[in-house]
C-alpha cells in the first residue's frame, strides 16, 4: 500500500466547515434573484399569460415570457442533438411540452419579493391530450435513429426459444430522480458579449459549448465556474433551460442573476432515470449452460428529444452465450427529457438480467452463483476481445464468505430468525472503463509546492483527492504540498465527470504531466553549472533537491535552480490519451452485491440485515474515498430496489410525490450492516495506474440482489420496482 492510498479528502475541511463555495454562494455585486414559473398543464399552448400583477409587485425588475423575450441568436441555428436538455429552447414559443415546463422568468431585488411576484402569474391554456404513461403509449414505440439504436444479434436471432429450458419474463422500473442535496443553481452574468456562469455542472467544457451554441458566441468567450458540487448523480451532465433562462435575464438587466430551482422543480425539469419495461428470454440446457439470451427494453423519452442508455448492453457480454439478441425502443411521452442517472442503463438492465438469471437458476435447481460460474465469460464475446483483467470470481468468493452464503437454502421460505423469514440474494454489476483525452498542467512553485490544474469537476467522488494522491506519489511529495485548481474554464481542458471515467482520464493525465515535469526539471538541472557533466540518467529529484544518484554531494536545490534561471516557477502542460494497445482489449469494472434480508410477510416489511458489495475496479487509488463511493452507490441501489419511484397522476400528467417527504430514499436505519470489498489488483492495460472506474458499478446489480433475496426469503418474485411492502403481503381484492 502506498503512502497516499488512504489520505483524507483534501476538500473535506472546506466542505464540513462551510468554507467551500458552491455556485449560488458566489458573491456577485448587484446580484438579483430569479425563479421560473412552470406550466400547470402537461401539453398544449399558452393562450394567454397574465404577468401584470407580477410586474407591478414591489421589487420586480423583469418578467420574461415567450411574448417579450429577446431570443438568443442560437435559437435560429440547427440544434446540436448531443446537447440533451437543450432541445427545449426556453421561451421560444407558446407550446407546452410537459407539466412544470418554464413559462416565465421572474426577477426581483430580493428573494422574497421574487417568490411573491411569481405566485401572481396566471396562464390560460389551450389544452391538448397528454400522454405520460408508458404502458398506455407502447404502440408509439420506435427505434432510435443512430448506430447505437440498432438491434444486436449474435448467433441465432432469439435463439433462447429453442432451448431445453426456457424463461420468459417482464420487468419494470419506474422513473427515478437524481435529486442531489444541492439544488440546481446558477449565478449568470455578462461581460459585454461574454457569458459568465457560476453553475452546477459536471462538465465545464460541455457547459461552455452548450452556452456558446445557444447564444451564438465563441466557446472561448464562455466562462464557467463549478468548483464545488453538492452531488449531481448525472443531472449535471447537460446544460438545462434554467441556466439559459438566467443568462437571458442577466443579459436583459445587465446584472448578475441568481436562480435556484425549487425542490419540486428538481423532479420535473432536470431529467431522471427513464421508466423502462424490459422483456427477458433465457434459454439453457438442463445442466445449466446458457444457450440463448434475448433482452428487450422499451423506455420513455420526451416528445422533443430522443434519449437512450445502455440498458441492454450488459446482456451482450457478461455471460458466455452464443445466441444473444438485444433490442432497444423508445416511446415519446409528455415529460422533460430523461438524463443518465448513476449506473445509467446498466443499473436498469441488470435488474432484468440478474433477476432473470436468478429465476432461471431456480428453474434449473442450481445455486445462482454456480449457475453464473457455469456461464462465466472467459472473454468478451460482443467485441471478440480478451478482458484487460477480470476478477469477478474473486468478487463472488469474497461476497459469499462475508454474507454467509453457505447458510442459504436454495428452496425459498425455509430459513427463519424468530418470526422473520430469511433470504439471501446477489446481483452482478459491470461498467465500461473509458478514458478521455485530458490536459493537466503541473507546476512547481519555488517553495516546493506542486500545483495541478485541470478544468474537470469534482461532484463528490474525491477527484481532487485522487489528483493529489497521484501527483504526490509520482513526484515523491507529501500530499499536503499539492495544490489542486479545478472546476473552472481557462484551466487545461478536462473531461465531463461521468461514466466512471474521471480517475482513468484525469488521473492518467496527472500521472503523465508529473512525470514530464520531473524529467523537464532534471533536464534543466543537468544544464546547470552545479551538475555539469553528470548524465541525465544519473540525476534524480527528491524533497526539493536535484542530485546525482552516484554522488549526493553534487546537487542543486529546486529553488536555486529557479533563481539561477530567473524563473518564478516551472511548469509543463500535457495532453494525455489512451494507448493504442488498449483498443485490443475489453476493459470493464465488475461488481457483485450480496444481500441478506429479513422479511415479515404479514406486514410486508423487508429489513436489510446485511449488505456486502464487492468490486473489481483495478487499482484502488484511495481506500477511503473508494469505500465512500461504493457505500453510496450501494445505497442508491437500495433506494432503487426498495423505495424510489416518481409517481405521476396521469389524469393531469403531474408528479404526485415531488418532495422528500413522499419520494423516499433510504435512511441509516434501513441498512443494519453494510460492508464493501475491493479486489484491488492493477489492470495491466487500462491506464498507467491500472484503475478501471467505480462510481457507476457501485450501484449496478444491487436492485436485483434485493429482489432475489426477497424471493429466497418469501417465494415471491417482484418484477416491478420498487419492492414496497404492498407487493409482499397478500392483497385482498375489493
Amino acid at each position, binding site marked *: 500500500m502506498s503512502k497516499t492510498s488512504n489520505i483524507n479528502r483534501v476538500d473535506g475541511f472546506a466542505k464540513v466547515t462551510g468554507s467551500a463555495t458552491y455556485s449560488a454562494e458566489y458573491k456577485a455585486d448587484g446580484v438579483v434573484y430569479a425563479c421560473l414559473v412552470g406550466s400547470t398543464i402537461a401539453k398544449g399552448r399558452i393562450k394567454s399569460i397574465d404577468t401584470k400583477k407580477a410586474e407591478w409587485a414591489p421589487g420586480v425588475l423583469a418578467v420574461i415570457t415567450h411574448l417579450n423575450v429577446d431570443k438568443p441568436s442560437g435559437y435560429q441555428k440547427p440544434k446540436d442533438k448531443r446537447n440533451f436538455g437543450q432541445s427545449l429552447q426556453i421561451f421560444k414559443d407558446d407550446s407546452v411540452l410537459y407539466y412544470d415546463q418554464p413559462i416565465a422568468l421572474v426577477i426581483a431585488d430580493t428573494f*422574497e419579493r421574487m417568490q*411573491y411576484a411569481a405566485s401572481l402569474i396566471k396562464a390560460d391554456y389551450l389544452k391538448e391530450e397528454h400522454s405520460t404513461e408508458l404502458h398506455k403509449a407502447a404502440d408509439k414505440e420506435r427505434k432510435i435513429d443512430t448506430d447505437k439504436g440498432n438491434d444486436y444479434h449474435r448467433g441465432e436471432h432469439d435463439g433462447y426459444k429453442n432451448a431445453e429450458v426456457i424463461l420468459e419474463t417482464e420487468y419494470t422500473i419506474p422513473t427515478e430522480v437524481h435529486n442531489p442535496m444541492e439544488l440546481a443553481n446558477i449565478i449568470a452574468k455578462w461581460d459585454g458579449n461574454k457569458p459568465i456562469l457560476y453553475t452546477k455542472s459536471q462538465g465545464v467544457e460541455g457547459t461552455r459549448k452548450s452556452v456558446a451554441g445557444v447564444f451564438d458566441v465563441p466557446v472561448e468567450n464562455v466562462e464557467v465556474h463549478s468548483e464545488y458540487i453538492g452531488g449531481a448523480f448525472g443531472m449535471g451532465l447537460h446544460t438545462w433551460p434554467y441556466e439559459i433562462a438566467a443568462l437571458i435575464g442577466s443579459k436583459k438587466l445587465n446584472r448578475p442573476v441568481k436562480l435556484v430551482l425549487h425542490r419540486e422543480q428538481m423532479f420535473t425539469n432536470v431529467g431522471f432515470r427513464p421508466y423502462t419495461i424490459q422483456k427477458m428470454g433465457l434459454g439453457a440446457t438442463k445442466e445449466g449452460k446458457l444457450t440463448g439470451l434475448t433482452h428487450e427494453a422499451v423506455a420513455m423519452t420526451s416528445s422533443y428529444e430522443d434519449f437512450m442508455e445502455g440498458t441492454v448492453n450488459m446482456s451482450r457480454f457478461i455471460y458466455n452465450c452464443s445466441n444473444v439478441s438485444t433490442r432497444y425502443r423508445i416511446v415519446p411521452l409528455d415529460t422533460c427529457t430523461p438524463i443518465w442517472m448513476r449506473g445509467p442503463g446498466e443499473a436498469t438492465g441488470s435488474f432484468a438480467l440478474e433477476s432473470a438469471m436468478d429465476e432461471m437458476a431456480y428453474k434449473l435447481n442450481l445455486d445462482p452463483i454456480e449457475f453464473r460460474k457455469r456461464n462465466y465469460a472467459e472473454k468478451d464475446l460482443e467485441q471478440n476481445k480478451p478482458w484487460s483483467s477480470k476478477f469477478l470470481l474473486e468478487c463472488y468468493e469474497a461476497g459469499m464468505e462475508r454474507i454467509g452464503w453457505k447458510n442459504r437454502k436454495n428452496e425459498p421460505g425455509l430459513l427463519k430468525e424468530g418470526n422473520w423469514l430469511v433470504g439471501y440474494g446477489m446481483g452482478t454489476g459491470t461498467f465500461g472503463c473509458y478514458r478521455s483525452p485530458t490536459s493537466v498542467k503541473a507546476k512547481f512553485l519555488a517553495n516546493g509546492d506542486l500545483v495541478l490544474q485541470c478544468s474537470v469537476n469534482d461532484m463528490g467522488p474525491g477527484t481532487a483527492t485522487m489528483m493529489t494522491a497521484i501527483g504526490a506519489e509520482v513526484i515523491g511529495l507529501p500530499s499536503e504540498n499539492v495544490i489542486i485548481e479545478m472546476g473552472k474554464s481557462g484551466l487545461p481542458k478536462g473531461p465531463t465527470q461521468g461514466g466512471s471515467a474521471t480517475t482513468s482520464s484525469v488521473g492518467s493525465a496527472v500521472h503523465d504531466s508529473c512525470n514530464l515535469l520531473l524529467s523537464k526539471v532534471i533536464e534543466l538541472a543537468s544544464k546547470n553549472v552545479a551538475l555539469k557533466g553528470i548524465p541525465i540518467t544519473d540525476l534524480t529529484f527528491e524533497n526539493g533537491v536535484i542530485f546525482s544518484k552516484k554522488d549526493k554531494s553534487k546537487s542543486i536545490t529546486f529553488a536555486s535552480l529557479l533563481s539561477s534561471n530567473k524563473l518564478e516557477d516551472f511548469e509543463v502542460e500535457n495532453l494525455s490519451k489512451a494507448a493504442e494497445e488498449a483498443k485490443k482489449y475489453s476493459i470493464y469494472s465488475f461488481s457483485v452485491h450480496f444481500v441478506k434480508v429479513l422479511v415479515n410477510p404479514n406486514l410486508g416489511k423487508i429489513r436489510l440485515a446485511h449488505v456486502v458489495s464487492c468490486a473489481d475496479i483495478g487499482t484502488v487509488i484511495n481506500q477511503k474515498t473508494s469505500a465512500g463511493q461504493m457505500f453510496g452507490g450501494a445505497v442508491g441501489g437500495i433506494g432503487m430496489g426498495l423505495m424510489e419511484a416518481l409517481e405521476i*397522476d396521469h389524469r393531469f400528467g*403531474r408528479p404526485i410525490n415531488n*418532495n422528500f417527504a413522499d419520494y*423516499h430514499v433510504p435512511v*441509516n436505519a434501513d441498512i443494519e450492516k453494510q460492508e464493501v470489498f475491493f479486489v484491488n489488483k492493477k489492470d495491466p492495460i487500462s491506464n498507467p495506474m491500472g484503475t478501471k472506474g467505480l462510481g457507476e458499478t457501485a450501484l449496478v446489480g444491487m436492485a436485483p440482489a434485493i429482489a432475489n433475496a426477497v424471493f429466497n426469503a418469501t417465494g415471491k418474485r417482484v418484477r416491478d420496482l420498487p419492492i414496497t*411492502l404492498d407487493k409482499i*403481503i397478500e*392483497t385482498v381484492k375489493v
Partner: protein
Amino acid sequence: MKNFQIIKALSASSAVTGKAKDNSSMFIAGGTNLVDLMKKNVVAPDKLVDINGLDLKKIEFLKGKVSIGALAKNSQVAEDSSIKEKHPLLALALAAGASQQIRHMATVGGNMLQRTRCSYFYNTDMPCNKRVPKSGCGAIGGSNRMSAIFGASDSCIAVHPSDMCVALAALDATVLVEGPKGKRQINFTDFHRLPGNTPEKDNTLDSRELITSVEIPDHNFTKNVHYLKVRDRTSYAFALVSVAVALDLKNNVIENARLAMGGVAHKPWRLTETEEFLKGKTVSEELFRQAANLSMKGARGYGENDFKLTLGANAITEALTIAASK
C-alpha cells in the same frame, strides 16, 4: 410567500384576543408544518400569533391524571422519564414520529393540528376539497396509496398523519382549550372529525380557540403496550398503517384493552368495539385474529390503498401479540 405580520403573545388570553381580531390569522408554535404550508402557498395567513412565549410547556403529574402543556416539545414528552413509566404508549408513539430534529421543534398542540399529508392537499395545481372547498378530490381515482379506509366521504379520503394522536385517542385523553368565550374541554376522540361534506375542517376547535394542554387520566396500561408503525422506510416516513395497543393483563386474561389505528382515517381511529370484544378473554393467536377481523369491519379501499385492508388486520394481530408478550 406573501408578506405577513407576526406578533408575539404574552399570555393565553392575549393570544386568543390577538387572533380573534383577524380572521385570517393563525397561531404558530413549532412551525414544523405551518411554515412548509406557507412556503408552498397552501395557507397564506395575513398574521401569525407566535405563542412560543406562553407558559404552556410543563408536564405536571396531578391527582388522577397528567397534564401536558400544549407547547411541550414532542421530544420533551417522549423522553420524560415519568411519561415513559406511566404512559409508555404515548412515549412510543411520539418516538415513532418524524425525526429527532422535528420532534425537538414540534409541540403537542401543533402535532394535533398538523394537516394531512395527502399529496393533493400540498400541490396547489391539483383539486382538493380540503384546501379549496368544492374543487374536487384528487385522491379519489388518483394516487391514494396513503388514503383512508375508514370514515372517508365522497369529498375527502385524506388521513390524519399524527402518531402521537393515535396514542392519545387510545388513552382517553382530554383536550383543554381557551377561547373568547372562556375555557372548555374536548374528549380527544371528539377533537378530530370525519370529513363529511366539509373536509376543510380537520377538527372541532373553533378558529379562535387555543389549545392549552392535554390531560391523560391515570390507568393501568404501563406494561403490555405497543405502538406498531408500518411505513415505507424505517425512519422519517408517515404511517401507512399504525396501531396503538394497550392491554391490562392479569394471568393472560385481558381485563381491559385500548386500541386505536393511525393512517387509516381522517382522525385517529379508536376501536371501541374491539376493546369490548377483547375484555375478559384469554390471550390467544385466534383471539387476536378475530379482534383484527372485527376491527376491519366497514373498511373499504380506493384502489392503490386496497392493501391496507390486509395490512391493517395483520398489523392489529401483530401489535396485540407484541403487547401481550411484553
